[in-house]
């Protein structure tokens, strides 16, 4: 049942994005940015944790989870260390995604030939 929920949630989020993409002049760059900000907003409202409990991988696989990770780690940093904690903890949760993307993009692009 969890798998079905994950499927439906991720599918719904993607099809909403597709509707926005087809009916407005926004580019995919706009939409991914908007989704990231939406993730931060939902996290701010305290909704995103509930969404993850309910939809599991369907919610964590989306780019909006990036906004959620940034917000929640920054806020936890504030709670632990005060103002400085916002800056020192901003990337703790999303570090895997950013470092992974950088490292593998670099390694892979060294090996692969660009198509022209």
């Amino acid at each position, binding site marked *: 049942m*969890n798998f079905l929920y994950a499927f439906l949630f991720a599918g719904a989020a993607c*099809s909403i994005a597709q509707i926005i993409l087809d009916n407005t002049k926004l580019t995919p760059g706009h939409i991914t940015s908007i989704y990231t900000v939406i993730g931060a907003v939902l996290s*701010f409202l305290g909704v995103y944790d509930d969404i993850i409990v309910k939809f599991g*991988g*369907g919610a964590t696989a989306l780019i909006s989870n990036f906004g959620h990770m940034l917000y929640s780690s920054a806020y936890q940093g504030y709670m632990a260390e005060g103002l400085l904690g916002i800056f020192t903890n901003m990337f703790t949760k999303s570090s895997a995604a950013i470092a992974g*993307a950088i490292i593998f993009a670099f390694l892979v692009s060294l090996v692969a030939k660009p*198509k022209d």
Partner: protein
Amino acid sequence: MTKDDYKKLVKKHTPKEPKLRNIVVAFFVGGFIGFIAEFLIYMLQESFGMSKVIAGSWTCLIIIVISSILTAFGFFDNWVNKCKCGLIIPTTGFAHSVTGSALDYKKDGLITGLGSNIFKLAGSVILYGVISAFIFVVIRVVING
């Protein structure tokens, strides 16, 4: 021919985007990635006894590695053209944009090409994510006192 006539003519001859089909494709492709993510989290929890958070991080990393490699082999660009948001909105889109720009600008050199352009597309996601997270934390702190 006036400008309006010309616009009508252009509109008549531009191929219509099959909007409904795009939505259905995005739904199933995006849903499939969500399903894979949930499945990986479940499998990692069951077979390695990981906690849910660690399994989630591994899943995120696995998805990123796979989409980087597929981008490098050139499959992913075609798929993104066909599936659009189904692949752009999940984390696959983030990895694809980083790897894609690294590959595209590699010919300009490692520093001026790859190095300075690797975040050409993904930069906006990181920038606005960080800015919005910072603003919301400040708001939260102000509200809570």
